[in-house]
């Protein structure tokens, strides 16, 4: 089921792009852009839903309900549902698009790993995923060289005899930028915001470690995903520049006032 609906189509689209472009690094980039474009409406809906929920949670009505029924959980949830209905908010409008995007992102990740097939078992497995009309024999094995990288190996750029993990550094920077720029402004004392701040600190290094140790084809995917996600948020006007440069936010605030 997973293979038929998600993985096999993705592997074959990736191979189809590769058959036209002839460069697997570029094929990964195009494929990632394509998938992010296709899932963009879902992401927009998710952002919209999250924002509506956040605004509703700040509303007076919501706060009053919270206070009033703080000792009666059942009643509280009934009242909350009533409020959702009144305001025309679907509480699942932010989580459903996320759920739909999740298998697509996992599929994209798996498709890249499987297409790189560097061992006999992986290549044998790959042969079962490629559609018969694809002329797989002409495409396999893929050419794994891209710029200075072997896409199946962890990336290092030799500079004066020292291998610098350039992509891993890019992954750290873009993950940090993404987490900073996409975090909504928080209220003082917000516990969730403290958790997010901690994640924002650890996540870039964690992703950087993965990029440092995994095949560089995956690191390219990480960097591209981060960049495209930032661009998607920017296109929707949801990038919080002041999270990144507080003075920029302040000066923006001053000029507005």
């Amino acid at each position, binding site marked *: 089921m997973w293979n038929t609906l998600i993985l096999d189509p993705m592997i074959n689209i990736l191979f189809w792009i590769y058959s036209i472009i002839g460069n697997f690094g570029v094929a990964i980039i195009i494929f990632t852009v394509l998938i992010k474009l296709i899932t963009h409406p879902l992401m927009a809906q998710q952002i919209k839903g999250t924002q509506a929920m956040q605004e509703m949670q700040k509303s007076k009505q919501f706060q009053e309900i919270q206070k009033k029924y703080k000792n009666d959980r059942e009643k509280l949830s009934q009242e909350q549902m009533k409020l959702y209905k009144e305001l025309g908010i679907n509480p699942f409008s932010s989580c459903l698009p996320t759920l739909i995007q999740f298998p697509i992102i996992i599929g994209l990740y798996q498709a890249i790993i499987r297409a790189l097939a560097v061992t*006999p*078992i*992986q290549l*044998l497995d790959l042969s079962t995923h490629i559609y018969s009309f694809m002329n797989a*024999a002409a495409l396999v094995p893929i050419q794994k060289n891209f710029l200075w990288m072997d896409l199946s190996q*962890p990336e290092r750029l030799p500079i004066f005899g020292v291998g610098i993990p350039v992509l891993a550094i890019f992954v750290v920077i873009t993950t940090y930028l993404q987490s900073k720029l996409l975090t909504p402004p928080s209220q003082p004392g917000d516990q969730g915001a403290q958790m997010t701040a901690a*994640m924002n600190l650890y996540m870039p290094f*964690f992703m950087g470690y993965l990029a440092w140790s*995994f095949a560089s084809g995956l690191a390219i995917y990480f960097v591209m995903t981060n960049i495209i996600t930032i661009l998607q948020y920017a296109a929707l006007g949801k990038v919080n520049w002041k999270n990144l440069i507080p003075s920029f936010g302040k000066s923006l605030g001053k000029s507005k006032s």
Partner: protein
Amino acid sequence: MKISKISSLALLLVILSIFLSGCSSNATLASSWPGLSIDQETAYLAYNQQVFAINILNGSEIWRYPEKPNAKITFYAPPALTSDNQLIIGGYNNILYGVNAINGNENWQFTNAKNRYIASPLVVDEKIYASNTDNTLYALGLQGNLLWTFETSGEQWAQPVLDPDGTKLYVSSMDHYLYAIDLEGNLIWKTQESLGGAIVGSPVVGDNDVLYIGSFGSHMYAINTQNGQVIWKTPTEDWIWSGPALKDNVVYFGDLNNYFYALDANNGSVLWRHQTDGVVTGTPTLTDEAIYFGTVTDGQDTGTLYALDYQGNVKWTKTIEARIYQSPILAGDVLVLAPVAKDYILAGFDLNGNQKWTFTPAKK
């Protein structure tokens, strides 16, 4: 409160890391099938993080290398034995090892290669020929000293083959071409046409200056060993993974669409073919009595050991809870099989397909 948040974050990161590692090509789980070679009463088995020397009469362990497994080093290429009792082992960590075949002590390491060793090294007289996935064939002395290299345009996954006249080596490449080189690493010829797909099996060389090789282009080829010209080619149902075997002017091999073929070596005509229950990836083992090979059942963790007669009739089959990627090797009256199974890594069968012993490495 703060501590619990940090620990839940750490837990989340650990779970995420396990999940991503599972999907990664660098995972330390077995990423290929075992590599088996046999010398008299000893089987040498390269599988995952260790290489084992096993007595094939009773399935007992003689030694293992390295003594303690190292998650960064894995071995899958069948080891090769030299005349001075060294076992040559290629690693997925890009290193070729020379190990004392008597006691498993390491003699030397060759670290020039830039990628993993999938092919078994070939040992001829005092030289080692090791194909690597960095597209290079490395020729070494018996102390691991580099003599010369020969590069192809694609990765080399198959063991090189020495021509019976002793003057030429044949090198299969995933660049769709087969190469003939002299024993100093100079190119003699490259097949005059692309063989339609990657070549991951070793050719078999027959009489009358002809060799036979299959490719992912779903054809078996007969090639003139003097000039690399294709003499005939026969289509198959799917990719050919294994190198063929040759006996009495008949070429035997399997494909990835569950067929096993017997072709007339003179003109490539199909003498017979037998439908099996799974893909055939190993070079068949030919004896006077039977043809032995194994299968991997589609989408399952089972495989079947086949014994066919030379007319293509089934003598017996034995289905086991294991994937059989390589054909059994005959040692005396024992068929030694290195399948991918849950409970064991090596098994001995008699010539009627009855299991005599299995070998499971003891935890140390």
